[in-house]
C-alpha cells in the first residue's frame, strides 16, 4: 500500500538539504547557487592573492619612504580599481541579475492560474500546519500528500502569526502573512517524503513546526485522498469505544475535530485519520503507541508552551484514548 511505502520512506534519508533538489524549481535554484559560489571563490581568490603578494614584497622598499612626494604605482592602482572594482563587477552583476531575476524567477514565482489542476490550502498555526484539499472533505495536519510529477498549487495563509512554509528540496520558501494568501507551486520528480519546516520565527516552539510533503504515485494519491475525505471509523473494541466516549465527553473534543462524531474543535489538528500519520506534534515525536500515550498524558513535556493543556488523565483513561485514536486510520 502506498501509505505504507511512504511511511517506510519517512523512516530513511529524510533531509532538508536545499542542494539535493527533487524538482525543477529547486534544481534551478541549486545550480544558480553553484555558479554563484564558483564566482565567489574566484573573487575571494583574487583578493587573497593580492594580499599575499603584498606580503611577499613587503621588504622591497624602505619603510616610510613613500609618504612624501609622488605615490608609487598610483596609475596601476586606478586601473585595477576602475577595471576590477567598477567595470567588471557591473557587467557580471547585471548578467546575474537578468539570469536570476528575469529568467529563473519565472520558474519559482507563483504559478499562473491555468498552470495547475490541484490546489491545496496550507494554514500555519502556532505550532503546526493545517492542510485542506478544497473540493473534498479531506483535512489533515503536518503531512501534505501530493501526486508525483504533477504541478500542485499551494495557497499559504496563517491563523495567527507570520510563518514561512518551506520544503527546500521542492521549492523556495513562501511566508504565511495574515493579510494575504500567498501561492507557490509544489512539484516532485520522484515519489518520496520531503521534509520541510517553518522558517520564520513564530514563537516558543518555532523549532518544532515541521511538515512532510509526501509525493505518491497518482493512483495511490487519489486512494489516499478518498480515504482521507471519509468520516472516522467507529471503534470496534470496547476499550476504544471507552476512549471515544472520553474524547467526546472530555476536553479533547473542544479543541479537535473528528469528522463523523460530535467533536468539532478548531484549535488543534483534525484527528479524523490521525493514526494514518507518521508523526505527532508537527514532527516533534513519532506517531507510535508509547509516544502518543506520553503526549496525551502531558503534551507540555515534549513541546513546552504548545496549546494542548495537561489534562491530568489517569493511566487507564490515557490507554483508552490511545486505543481509540490508534484506530483512526
Amino acid at each position, binding site marked *: 500500500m502506498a501509505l505504507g511505502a511512504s511511511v517506510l520512506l519517512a523512516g530513511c534519508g529524510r533531509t532538508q538539504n536545499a542542494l539535493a533538489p527533487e524538482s525543477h*524549481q529547486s534544481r534551478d535554484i541549486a545550480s544558480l547557487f553553484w555558479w554563484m559560489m564558483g564566482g565567489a571563490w574566484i573573487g575571494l581568490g583574487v583578493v587573497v592573492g593580492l594580499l599575499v603578494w603584498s606580503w611577499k614584497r613587503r621588504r622591497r622598499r624602505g619603510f616610510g619612504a613613500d609618504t612624501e612626494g609622488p605615490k608609487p604605482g598610483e596609475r596601476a592602482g586606478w586601473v585595477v580599481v576602475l577595471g576590477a572594482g567598477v567595470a567588471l563587477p557591473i557587467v557580471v552583476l547585471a548578467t546575474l541579475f537578468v539570469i536570476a531575476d528575469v529568467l529563473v524567477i519565472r520558474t519559482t514565482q507563483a504559478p499562473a492560474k491555468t498552470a495547475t489542476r490541484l490546489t491545496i490550502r496550507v494554514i500555519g498555526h502556532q505550532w503546526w500546519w493545517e492542510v485542506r484539499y478544497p473540493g473534498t472533505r479531506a483535512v489533515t495536519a503536518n503531512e501534505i500528500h501530493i501526486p508525483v510529477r504533477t504541478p500542485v498549487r499551494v495557497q499559504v495563509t496563517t491563523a495567527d502569526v507570520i510563518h514561512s512554509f518551506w520544503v527546500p528540496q521542492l521549492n523556495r520558501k513562501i511566508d504565511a502573512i495574515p493579510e494575504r494568501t500567498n501561492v507557490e507551486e509544489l512539484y516532485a520528480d520522484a515519489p518520496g517524503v520531503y521534509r520541510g519546516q517553518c522558517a520564520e520565527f513564530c514563537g516558543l516552539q518555532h523549532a518544532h513546526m515541521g511538515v512532510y510533503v509526501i509525493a505518491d504515485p497518482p493512483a495511490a494519491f487519489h486512494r489516499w485522498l478518498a480515504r482521507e475525505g471519509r468520516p472516522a471509523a467507529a471503534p470496534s473494541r470496547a476499550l476504544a469505544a471507552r476512549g471515544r466516549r472520553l474524547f467526546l465527553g472530555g476536553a479533547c473534543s473542544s479543541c479537535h475535530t473528528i469528522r463523523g462524531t460530535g467533536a468539532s474543535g478548531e484549535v488543534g489538528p483534525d484527528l479524523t485519520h490521525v493514526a494514518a500519520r507518521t508523526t505527532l506534534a508537527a514532527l516533534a515525536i513519532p506517531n507510535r503507541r508509547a509516544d502518543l500515550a506520553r503526549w496525551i498524558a502531558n503534551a507540555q513535556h515534549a513541546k513546552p508552551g504548545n496549546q494542548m493543556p495537561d489534562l491530568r488523565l489517569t493511566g487507564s483513561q490515557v490507554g483508552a484514548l490511545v486505543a481509540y485514536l490508534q484506530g483512526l486510520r
Partner: protein
Amino acid sequence: MAVVEAPESPAAAERLDRLEQIWRSRPGLLGWLTTTDHKRVGLLYLWTTLAFFAAGGAESLLIRTQLAQPNSHVVSPSTFDELFSMHGITMIFFFIIPMTTGAFGNYLLPLMIGARDMAFPRMNALSYWIFLASGIFLYTSLGLGMAPNAGWFDYVPLASRAFDPGRNVDFYCLGIIFNSIASTLTAAQFIVTIFKSRAPGMSLNRLPLFCYAQLAAAFGLLFALPPLSADTIFLFLDRNVGTHFFDVALGGKSLLWQHLFWIFGHPEVYILIVPAFGIATSIIPAFTQRKLVAFPLVGIAELLVVFIGFGVWAHHMFATGLPTISLVFFAAATAMVVIPSTIQVFAWCMSFVTGTPQFKTPLLFIAGFIFMFVTGGLTGIMFMAIPFDQQVTDTYFVIAHFHYIIFGAAVFPIFGGLYYWFPKVTGKLYLERPGQLSFWIVFVGTNLLFFPMHIVGLLGMPRRQYTYPDGLGWTSYNLAETIGGFLTAAGILLLLGNLVYSYRKGADAGSDPWHGPTLEWATTSPPPEYNFPVVPKVTSAYANWDRDDREEDRRRLAEGLFVLEQGHEQVEVSAVDARLSDVVPMPHESPWPPLLAASLALVFSMLLLRKFGVAGVMAVLCVLTLVGWHSREPAEQ
C-alpha cells in the same frame, strides 16, 4: 613631530600655560560627570560599549552552548528567545554603533580635523548620557525577566499584545526610541562638526577618509532612525493605546512593520560597517606608508554605499509574496550597492601592493577584515538572486553572511583600531607578539564559528530555533561553531589583557610611533585637553606627512598666531572649502546633560508603566532642564 614638546620661546611656553588653564577640566568624578571634552566622552563611550559587548557576547555563548548538541536543554525555549533578541539588540544598538561612532568618532574626529572639540560639546555629552540611560533601561528588562523576546526585528503580529502580552516588547519599543535619540544627536553632532569645525584649508578634497566614513554613517543614522522610530511608536500605540496600525482585523497591515523596519534596517547594516571602513582607511596608509590608492573614489564609495543602502530594504522581504515587479527594484539596487564595496576593496588591496606593508597587529586585523568582508560580501551578492534568497533567507546561511559582515567587517577593524590608537590614547605601546597572537586566535575562531553556518543553512537549518533534531546532518557543524565561539572569546580576552597590561606596564610610545598620516599624530599622546597648541595648517588629506605645515604650526605658536589663548574658543569654517569664517566661544563643563538624560529616563519609565499623565509631568521636567541648560550662554563666560 609633536609641537607641544619643548616650545622654543618662553612666550610660546607662556601661551601653552594659558591654554592649559582655560581648557583644564574639573578633577575627580565630578569632572567626568560634567565633562564636555570629546576625548573624555569618547572614553566613557568606550568603557560602556565594552561592557555591553561583554553582555552581548555572554548571550551569544549561551546560545551556542544550547545549540552545541541536538535536543539539549541548557536554557528553556523562552530564555533562548530572550537571549537571541537581546544579543541582536545589544550588539547593534549598544555595541557597534556607539563603539564606532560614539567611542572612535568622538575621540578621533576633532583630532583628525584639527579642532579643539565637537561643534556642540554639551550636546555631545548628552548623547552619551542618553545612550547610557537607554542601555540601563533596556537591561533592566533582563533583570526583571521581561526582556524583548520577539527577535531584534520584532515582527508583528508575533510582537503584538495578543501574542506577546508581557512588557517585553514595550521594553523593546521604548528602549529603541530612547537609544535612537542618542544616536540622532551624535549624527547631527558629527555632520555639523565635520562641516563647520575643520581646520582652515581642509577642503572636502582634503578631508581624511575616516571623516568621510563618519560623515556617511552620520547621514545614514540621521535618515534611517526616523522610520524605525515611527515603526516602534506605531507598535507601542497598538500595544498600549489601542490603535490598529498592524491589526489586520481592522485594516492594519503586518507588512507595514516590515517595510518601515527594513527601511531603517538595511542602511543600518552599512551604518555599522562604514565607520569600520574609516578605521581601515586610517590604518592602511600608516602601515603601508602610502597614501591610499584612488582617494576620491574611496571617499565617494563610503557615502554611496550608505545612500544606495536606503534603496534595498525589500530584499529582506523577498519571501513575503510581493509582486515580482516590485521586488526587482530592490534586487537591482542590491546588485549595484556592491560596487562601492568593490571599489574600496581593490583600493585597499592595491595600497597594500604598491605600498610598503608592515604587518603589525593593526594591519593584520585589517587584512583579516578584508578577507572576512569579501567573504561576507560575496555571499551578500547572492541575495540579489531573488529565487536563491527565497531559498536561504531565514536560515543559518544568512546568519553566516551577516556575521562575516558585522563581526568580520565591523568588529575586526574595531580591534585593529583599538591597537592602532592605543598609543595615542594612553601614551604607551601595546605588546606586539601577544597582539599578533590575539589576531590569529580571533581569526581562526571566527571562521570556525561562522563558516559552517553557510553549510548548515544550505542543509536547511532555520535560524532562531532553540533546538534541532539529530539526523539532519546539522549536529557536527553546530558543535564546531560552538567551539569556534569560545575560541573567539579567548582571543578577545587575550586582546583586552594585552591592552590592560600595556596600559599599566607598557613602554613609552611618544607622540607618533607609527609615523601616522593624520593630524591626531601631530600632538602629544595622550593629547592635551585643547588638542592642539595652534589651529593646524592643512594643505592635504595626510596633514601629518606635510613637514612644512607642521613647521608652520611651530612658527604660529612662536608668533602667537592661531593659538586662541584669549578664551575657550575654536575656529569655524565654511562648509565646503573650509575657509576660516569665525572664531566661536565654546561651552565648558556642564551638569545639565546628565540631568536631562535622567529626566528623559523618567519619562520613558512612566510610559512603560502606562502612566501617561505622569510621563507628561516628567516631560515638563525635561523642558525645565533645557531652560536651565540654556540659561548660561557661552558668550557670557
